[in-house]
């Protein structure tokens, strides 16, 4: 993390039963209060029963964030990975940016989530040392417990959260050195796999709310086209169709279930104004691209000695890869 960045860690007790830290993606981590110092991007919560929950807005799309992000926290907090659950943050006033993209989830969370885990760990160790009346330096953390090394006394994190939540959040907690890692850098089975293989993972399409209706959208067959006129009388005659309306991307049919909406959509009569791409021809476009590759290019950078190596290589392999757009 950049030393020039301001970083906060904020904690509060939630009705005296949990330690709650607010974490900002730009490296800010702070104690949560009712007033709210800033709009955090993530939360770390440790409950009285020792349950650890992180709430983050990073969407899982196969890249593994629902495993990798808990690993960052579990590593520094010194708890078992299985004991960390991840809650999906939903857009709203409580959260700042909830963007997922650009391969940024792990490297963007790397500092803040580790720091939050490390800060919580130090607060729990401090709370335990105060309870025992011993030096914090004589205490260590170990898999969800604080241990007083000279006497072997132990106390679980959960019973320390209330006291810990009243402590000042360390601004610069000690992060583990890579050689101390026991989770980061090791192949780790995905935490969400059991739910996936039993069909219990909920995707966007699986969301259910009371009174849910379903929509199907008829879109322009040409990119950039728009609706010229439409007639929904046949669509409205489909039993279960509730509403038909024009929206920016086309004409939406709303029905009591997906099949009804799809049948209604198929029964729409839409005339499109196809716009500037109406005459677009994929074959001609491909030819134009292929011709362009034969013209002299312009060098924008030159790295390494690859061209020399190719010139003197014993064997050259050539292949052409095409991507339509």
């Amino acid at each position, binding site marked *: 993390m950049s030393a020039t960045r301001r970083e906060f860690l904020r904690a509060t007790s939630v009705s005296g039963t949990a330690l709650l830290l607010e974490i900002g993606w730009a490296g800010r981590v702070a104690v949560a209060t009712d007033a709210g110092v800033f709009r955090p991007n993530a939360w770390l919560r440790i409950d009285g029963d020792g349950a650890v929950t992180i709430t983050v807005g990073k969407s*899982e*799309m*196969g*890249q*593994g964030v629902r495993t990798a992000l808990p690993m960052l926290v579990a590593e520094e907090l010194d708890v078992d990975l299985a004991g960390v659950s991840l809650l999906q943050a939903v857009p709203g006033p409580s959260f700042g940016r909830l963007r997922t993209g650009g391969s940024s989830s792990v490297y963007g969370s790397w500092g803040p989530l580790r720091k939050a885990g490390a800060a919580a760990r130090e607060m729990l160790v401090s709370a335990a040392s105060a309870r025992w009346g011993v030096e914090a330096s004589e205490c260590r953390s170990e898999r969800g417990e604080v241990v007083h090394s000279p006497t072997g006394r132990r106390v679980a994190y959960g019973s320390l959260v209330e006291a810990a939540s009243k402590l000042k959040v360390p601004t610069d907690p000690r992060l583990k050195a890579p050689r101390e890692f026991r989770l980061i850098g090791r192949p780790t*089975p*995905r935490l*969400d*796999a*059991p739910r*996936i*293989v*039993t*069909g*219990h*993972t*909920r*995707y966007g*399409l*699986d969301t*259910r709310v009371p009174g849910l209706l*379903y929509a199907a959208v008829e879109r322009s067959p040409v990119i950039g086209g728009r609706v010229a006129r439409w007639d929904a009388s046949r669509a409205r005659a489909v*039993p*279960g169709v509730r509403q038909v309306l024009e929206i920016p991307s086309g004409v939406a049919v709303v029905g009591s*279930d*997906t*099949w*009804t909406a*799809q*049948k209604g959509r198929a029964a729409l009569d839409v005339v499109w104004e196809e716009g500037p791409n109406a005459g677009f021809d994929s074959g001609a476009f491909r030819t134009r691209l292929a011709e362009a590759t034969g013209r002299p290019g312009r060098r924008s950078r030159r790295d390494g000695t690859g061209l020399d190596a190719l010139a003197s290589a014993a064997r050259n392999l050539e292949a052409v890869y095409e991507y339509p757009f």
Partner: protein
Amino acid sequence: MPLFRVKVNGESRSVDAPADMPLLWILRDRLDLTGTKYGCGVGICGACTVHVDGRAVRSCQVTLPDVALASITTIEGLSSDASHPVQRAWLEEDVAQCGYCQPGMIMQAAAFLRENPRPTDAQIDAAMSDSVCRCGTYGRIRRAVKRAGAAGR
């Protein structure tokens, strides 16, 4: 709307639906069994695969009158605790990435292995090639199918 009785995951269920509604939408929108996924709706991607009397069937391509007397199994009914050999193999090989296609993949593999418990790689590829995975987990799928076949013997 007509009332149908269907047998899903061992339970007899009563469903009020138009006769042309594909089984996929009966499962998802009427019975709230959302483990069966909608991919293409035209029977080419395999995400909606379920078992009808033990055979792998694209649920978007059959209607209730087609399966009226049949016994239907969805991913939720294969086992609820991931104890089926195919689910176990999927976990051991850590196959899934986004996971969206995997219920269909698993149902396809389970039906295939029942008929051919000792498949070659080529037979696995042939049996699984009509199921599409955007994440590209095919290598792990092949290993998991092999592993499940070996475990089931």
